[in-house]
């Protein structure tokens, strides 16, 4: 008994148990019509719908499009955000020139610029990729700038004492020392890029997982709509998980350093 309590309250299994309980409640609530079974179908029905859209290939087709948009946009924003951030963070002159522009653009809600982008780029892939790139660009940029500007003076002076040229200082010290911040920005942005992909697909066009969910709702395929939502939860979770795993592998030194400081 004590062992069971330990597993429930002190391991990961407790959290999984919570999820199972909630899904069971949902299933029962719908079965006994406590909630409207048409608007909130049983979990078992949703799972069946999920299996059928997976096996028919419909879901994968939409995901292929969505993930392409998401990762293209994200990749562009990472390349641009990191390289601009490094330059802006390194050069005081460039920082002074660009800071007001950044502070002006960054808080603009991405939804506000969608009409502008539709006007300029249409409703195809270009528009969606651009919006994803735009939204995920700012966290990466700002974190990179902060990271570079926050590099310890002592570290920079040490490198110069040992004879590092500006380029060697930049490549061998600044980028390394700023990398934890850069990675943080990238982690924030990967979540944003999924959200924005879905929003863009819901607003315009006829493909992608965002379109799939909205279309299912409009054509009253309610179980399929829920299936789409659940699949996105799973994709979002997996993407984040893969990112965190890669991060703890590549940034092992930083993980060790910070966990030591917390002690």
């Amino acid at each position, binding site marked *: 008994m004590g062992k069971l309590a330990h597993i429930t309250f002190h391991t990961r299994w407790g959290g999984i148990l919570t999820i199972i309980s909630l899904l069971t409640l949902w299933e029962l609530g719908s079965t006994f019509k406590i909630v409207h079974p048409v608007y909130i179908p049983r979990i078992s029905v949703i799972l069946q719908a999920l299996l059928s859209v997976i096996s028919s290939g419909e879901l994968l087709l939409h995901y292929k499009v969505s993930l392409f948009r998401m990762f293209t946009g994200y990749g562009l924003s990472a390349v641009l955000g990191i390289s601009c951030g490094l330059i802006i963070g390194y050069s005081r002159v460039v920082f002074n020139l660009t800071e007001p522009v950044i502070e002006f653009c960054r808080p603009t809600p991405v939804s506000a610029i969608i009409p502008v982008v539709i006007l300029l780029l249409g409703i195809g892939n270009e528009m969606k990729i651009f919006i994803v790139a735009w939204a995920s660009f700012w966290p990466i940029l700002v974190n990179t700038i902060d990271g570079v500007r926050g590099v310890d003076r002592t570290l920079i002076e040490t490198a110069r004492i040992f004879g590092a040229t500006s380029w060697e200082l930049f490549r061998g010290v600044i980028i390394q020392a700023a990398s934890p911040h850069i990675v943080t920005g990238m982690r924030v942005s990967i979540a944003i890029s999924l959200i924005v992909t879905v929003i863009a697909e819901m607003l315009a066009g006829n493909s992608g997982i965002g379109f799939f969910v909205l279309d299912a709702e409009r054509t009253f395929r309610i179980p399929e709509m829920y299936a789409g939502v659940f699949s996105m939860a799973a994709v979002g979770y997996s993407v984040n998980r893969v990112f965190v795993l890669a991060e703890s592998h590549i940034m092992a030194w930083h993980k*060790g350093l910070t966990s030591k400081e917390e002690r």
Partner: protein
Amino acid sequence: MNRLFSGTFGFFSMAPYIMSLLSVANISKDFLSSDQYTSAIKSLSFEVEEQEFVSIIGPSGCGKTTLLMIISGLMKPTFGEIIFRGEKVNSLLPGLILLFQDYSRSLMPWRTVISNVRYGLDLKRQRINFKAKNIEKQAEKYLDAVGLLEFRNHYTWQLSGGMQQRVAIARALACEPSLLLMDEPFGSLDAQTRAELEDQLLQIWEQFRQTIMFVTHDIEEGIYLSDRVIILTPSPAEIQQELYIDLPRPRNQLETRSDPGFLSLRNDIHQMILKSE
């Protein structure tokens, strides 16, 4: 010989400096803060000889760090000049390494211990033809000299404070600098670690004979380590006195520190500093 002439000649006459490794000639440094100049250093002149161990002793905040920054070329003096091996210095000196007090901020946490020690050598390799094997060997030699060879593949933040400062010392020595500037390197260590590191530094110095300029606010530490101490006044820093320490070497924490000569030097310097305040 040239000690007779030291300091007083100003920077127009170069001749007396030729023999010295380093001449600090009439250095002044003013900082502009809120519309007024504060003087941090006021016409300092002294010399450092080849293979000498010189300590600069002065109260906290008297401009010792500023002085080291100027000598190393990280900061420009308002007035005066630094002459290294008879030549005027305008930029960073290739043969000079400055060791900071704050080891945790000057070591690179993404590099392992051995890789930190290699840092200066890796940079050198970009310019002169320096084989990778030699770099590894040289890094190991100096890491061994500070007794940390077995920790070569650790990250620096996995080591204690004293060990981290030893890694920083090994990294500085690995470049075989002709002048090693140390800015209160043991200031943030506990007393026992400090004594250990002082002895290790002396051992290494006797082995490799690199010229060391050591800055400290600890009078006893300065006397214990050095051939000569230069005592600075409170800000703006001026030279109050230069003293030669002719205590026998090798020095020993117990014997040297209870030597009557050591005690009287300590008292003299202490009184000097008290008087100047």
